[in-house]
């Protein structure tokens, strides 16, 4: 059997959107391998998530509902994922390339003695085998890799696959695994950055600020512009390190990978590690007072100006 297992990500009773491109990836892989796409929900009182997943393009849903999955822990997820992969005959086990997927999937891969591909952006056939492309070198190089293990674990870059069309509800199977809760680790807290704005990874517009803004206060003008165009706010690592923006806003090699329709880079110089996270944007607009800043080399439109003047002016002009 060569089924494809997709581990769903969810929060507060709702399927996270990051799961959908992962199913999109699974569809492409399925065209090469055949088999079924099985969605897996590990959670507590998570029937609503399973129901949502059932219409998201999978062929089958498995719900493992237990208090030990109430708070996310890799030590609890990994054995469950490995067990379900085994009993359901999976040849590919996929999860979003989110901080959750990146945390538990390598652990599950080691348990399954499986090779693992991180951040897949493409799946294709190579001499009859399934092969993958993934960005390396801060996005300046694409590696092509194949796997020789019976099972291959794959995290999927959200920006590179479409969500499949919603389908008829797939059957939901409830399984209990009987694993005990891990006793050498405890979840303590999740300090969530509250926001009414769209998530960076699926925002159509992003206004991102850099160190040049010099204060958290200055990010308010970016927020105002973002709210006007229905976008999200992002930041460079230097801005986050300086305390101007929360870590969740960071875009780049160590932050989020984004690909909005329009990306405003405000007072960001354009280090390769930042570009690694936003080069896939459709239109890039730069506002920087230094006309030589490297970010202009990848910008569609550049305005050489003081951000403190240009951003409020832009917001006013768009009102």
């Amino acid at each position, binding site marked *: 059997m060569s089924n494809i297992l997709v581990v769903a990500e969810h929060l507060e009773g709702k399927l996270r959107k990051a799961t959908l491109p992962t199913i999109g990836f699974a569809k492409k892989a399925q065209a090469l391998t055949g088999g079924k796409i099985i969605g897996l929900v590990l959670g507590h009182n998570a029937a609503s998530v399973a129901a949502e997943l059932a219409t998201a393009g999978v062929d089958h849903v498995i719900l493992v509902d237990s208090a030990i999955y109430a708070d996310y*822990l*890799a*030590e609890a997820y990994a054995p469950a994922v490995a067990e379900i992969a085994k009993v359901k005959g999976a040849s590919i086990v996929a999860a979003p390339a989110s*901080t959750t997927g*990146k*945390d*538990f*999937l*390598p*652990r*599950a891969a*080691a348990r399954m003695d499986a*090779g*693992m591909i991180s951040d897949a952006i493409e799946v294709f056939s*190579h001499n009859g085998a399934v092969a993958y*492309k993934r960005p*390396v*070198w*801060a996005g300046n*190089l*694409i*590696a*092509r*890799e*194949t*796997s*020789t*293990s019976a099972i291959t674990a794959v995290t999927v870059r959200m920006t590179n696959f479409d969500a499949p069309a919603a389908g008829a509800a797939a059957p939901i199977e409830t399984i209990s695994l009987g694993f005990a809760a*891990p*006793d*050498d*680790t*405890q979840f*303590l*807290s*999740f300090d*969530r950055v509250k926001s009414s704005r769209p998530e960076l990874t699926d925002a159509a*517009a992003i206004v991102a600020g850099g160190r040049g803004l010099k204060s958290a206060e200055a990010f308010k003008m970016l927020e105002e512009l973002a709210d006007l165009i229905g976008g999200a706010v992002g930041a460079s690592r230097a801005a*986050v390190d300086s305390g101007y923006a929360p*870590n*969740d806003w960071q875009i780049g090699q*160590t932050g*989020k990978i984004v690909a909005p*329709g*329009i990306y405003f880079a405000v007072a960001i110089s354009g280090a*390769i590690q930042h570009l690694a996270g936003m080069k896939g944007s*459709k*239109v*890039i607009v730069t506002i920087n007072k230094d006309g030589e800043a490297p970010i*202009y*080399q*990848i910008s*569609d*439109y*550049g*305005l050489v100006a003081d951000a403190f003047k*240009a951003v409020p*002016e*832009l917001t006013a002009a*768009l009102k």
Partner: protein
Amino acid sequence: MKILATVKRVFDTDGKPKLTADAKLDVSSIDCKLNPFDEYGVEEAVRLQEKGIATEVVICCVGPEEAQKEMRTALAMGGDRGLLVKVNDTESLDTLSIAKILAAVVKKEKPDLVILGKLSTDSENNQVGQMLAELTGLPQATFAFKLTPDAGGWAIVGREVDGGTSDVKVKLPAIITADLRLNEPRYASLPGIMKAKKKPLEITTPEALGVSVKPAIVGIGYELPPARKAGIKVASVAELVDKLRNEAKVIS
């Protein structure tokens, strides 16, 4: 407490990579360096030693003989000794192979804390720490920006996760992977560099550790990503708005 901090010799990714005619990476003119994420891991280990919490810090690398250079760079920051597991062609090893070798090192050294970087800046897998945790049966705390061992044999770790931050408590021994806000790595001082030259650096092999590995992931070449062209500069906010509305049509 004994700490094992891992370091990888990575290619310097600041330069633009070049490909050979058969789609391999042309590494002939590329320098190597210590993986930046590992500097944060080593720094944390050294700080715990300076605070008197760690009694011994061992720097471990799987790599070619040349990797002693990166190990000395780490030892110049601090730590007591190095352990190089000699593999000439680390490029042929996948993450699971590296993790299996490191698991054998953990079995031999019995550290209370293993600190890895969360990611290598060249091959960017972000897997080795998590795999090592499974193979050793130890708890993991990845993407750490805060690490506080307590007196009862546990450590509280602040993790950078999507949507904010999360705290977990792991029982030692445990596996930690370092993110960039964990600390600010020091520059090695001249006395540090001199001292590092004299620190013991043992060289072993996977065979001597009793591991044989066969990588599952096989590289089949590289390609360059589509290049983005520089666009135009506009003279004013009014012109920018006009272009966005009427040319790019991305804003109404």
